[in-house]
């Protein structure tokens, strides 16, 4: 299962470092691809076979193309329509959360800054989407 990939879209190096630390600490085997802005994320999704990416961790506030726009385009593209997208944002505002779900996010996770649980959320989310859930390759019937 080493081909299973997580696409992490995040421009904050600190958050990236914490995320990588958490993944390594919990010894997850998923290969993580990291891009620094929305445009790179879209390019990455266009370049690869959509099936290679099993989970997208998407920050909202980014340069060039922000998270919302990325989410909108992913959902507009047939190949990426069903790829789980977890929005990871520092905002805990209700309207931000509601908008993300409206745009087609599968989850919304507020970056928790807890001295005891740094990066824990990431492990929980990855477990949930990559271990517990079964996502169809396409919404169209086989």
């Amino acid at each position: 299962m080493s081909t299973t990939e997580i696409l992490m879209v995040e421009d904050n190096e600190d958050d990236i470092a914490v995320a990588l630390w958490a993944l390594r600490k919990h010894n997850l085997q998923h290969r993580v691809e990291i891009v620094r802005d929305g445009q790179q994320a879209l390019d990455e999704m266009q370049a690869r076979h959509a099936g290679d990416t099993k989970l997208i961790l998407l920050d909202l506030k980014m340069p060039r193309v922000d998270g919302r726009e990325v989410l909108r385009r992913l959902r507009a593209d047939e190949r990426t329509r069903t790829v789980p997208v977890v929005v990871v944002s520092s905002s805990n505002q209700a309207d931000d959360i509601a908008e993300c779900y409206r745009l087609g996010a599968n989850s919304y996770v507020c970056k928790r800054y807890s001295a005891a649980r740094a990066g824990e959320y990431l492990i929980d989310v990855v477990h949930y989407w990559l271990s517990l859930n079964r996502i169809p390759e396409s919404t169209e019937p086989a």
Partner: protein
Amino acid sequence: MTDPDRAPEELREPDHPSFRSRGAAVRDMMGLTRGLVSAWPTLLTFFAGLLATLGVWMLAETYPRSERNRTQLATANGMRQVLEVRLNDHLRGLELIRDLWTRFPSHEPAEWKARAQVFLQQHPALAMVAMVPDAPTSLGATAGASPSADLALFDDGPAGRESTELVARAPGVSEWKVGRELSERLREARRRAVDDQRASLDGPYLAESGQGFYQVVVPLQDQDRPAGMLCALLQPAPLMATLIREAAPDYFLTVHDGATQVYAQGVPPRAADGEPQDPNERIELPIRLLMGSTWTLGLVRSDLFDMPSSLSLGKLVLAIGLVFSVLLAGVVHLGQVARVRARALAIANRELRSQIVSTAVAEGRVRRVNESLEARVAERTRALDEVVNELETFNYSVSHDLRSPIGAIVNFTSILTEDYKDKLDAQGVDILRRVAGCAQNAVTMMDGLLTFSHIGQQSLTPGPVEMRPLVESVYAEVALAHDGRAPAFSVGALPTVTADATMMRTVWTNLLSNAVKFTASSPEAAIEVGSQPAPEEDVFFVRDNGVGFEMKHATRLFNVFEQLHPTPQSKGRGVGLAIVSRIVRRHGGRVWAQAAPGKGATFYFSIPKVAA
């Protein structure tokens, strides 16, 4: 508006004293002119009219009279001349007939008679002419002959020598009967004329047959000796009638010989009652006849066509002039009044126009000031909105941008704590824990500020919110967040309100979270949620039996900035209450609290009822 503060001063202009007195002056002037101005021209006109009337009256009184007099005089003169010439022509003609006898001594009676007949035809005023020579004519046959009956007039002629042969009568003249007494007077007159050897015109006489006549006697001379006479009878009235009847129809005309009226013609003027005939009106001219007689021609204008004296021209002129003067004065007066009023009206109009203009100008200023005020208010509001917006943006971005690095501190300290704990001594671990705690506090604070700022910018989406299920749901979350520690919790009957559901959730979350937090040290923690009925709003409360606080800090609890510098009393409450306050106030409600240290606290908020 370059100087808006000046505008109100200018706006007072219509109330300015000078402005008002100008209008009053116009009104005063109008009243004044109505009283005074029109009098002088009116009086002047009246007196001028009166003067003109008097002038015309005097002319009317004098001019026609003199004119009439002149006409009358001319008429009289003409008549006098005609009468004088014609009568004298008759008398002179007699001398011619005499000379016919004396200068042609043939003394042919028949020839003389024939000539005399022609003469009489040419001189109609003469009724008869007779030659009475003293000496016997050559016609001896005639001498001594008895006078004919025709000559009865002269039958007692001088010396009885009258000869009937030398008598010529005008056609139609028949016998005149003359009484004895008149006959004697005639003879006497003849004798006197012969004695005086002077031609004479004597009379007037009245024949018994009714004819008025004169006797003309022309003495005859033969070589400077008296030689008889020529007699003629002059009947002037018919001649005068033929001469002047047509000439002066408008006059009453008389001819007097001395006191005796010889002739009268026309209608005598009526003598007005008690008004003597104006002597100026009567003209008397002498008619000088040959043979020393002078008659008098009297001419007076018949007043056939004259005005009655009561309606004389002068009086008429006076009356008309007076009326005309009064009318003219009236017209002038009216014209004057009209002119003055028109002028006053024009002034008033001008004043009114200028007032209208001033009013319009003032209104324009008011409008401009209002517009500029509105513009300024709008501008200030916009500026204020911008400031608020900037503040919110600043607040948000500061919070947000600070939150990440501080969040990173939290995360990295937790990594340090987890992975490198055994490489630090106890003091190092304690310092690390303090760093993490401080960073965590900062993050919590910033999250609160972010929420607070966000609520200010968020638009309200009101809808029906059932409070009781909401409270129960929120309490479950809060309890979970506090590690499942559950104080005794009771919820009363709560009404449904019209509000933004998301914001209501935030309100309850903060209030319940606080309640749980501050009852942590209470052995029998109890939290009660309820509502109180009020006419225009729904009041909700959250009561706890926690640590409470002093009432003097009550208002400060809701101030977000107070929470940035936490006192021991409010420490740890964060900006939650400020957020609650902001949400409730945005809904038009209010928040307040009742508490005492160690005796718990009750937080109230109200949501206005929406009019059905």
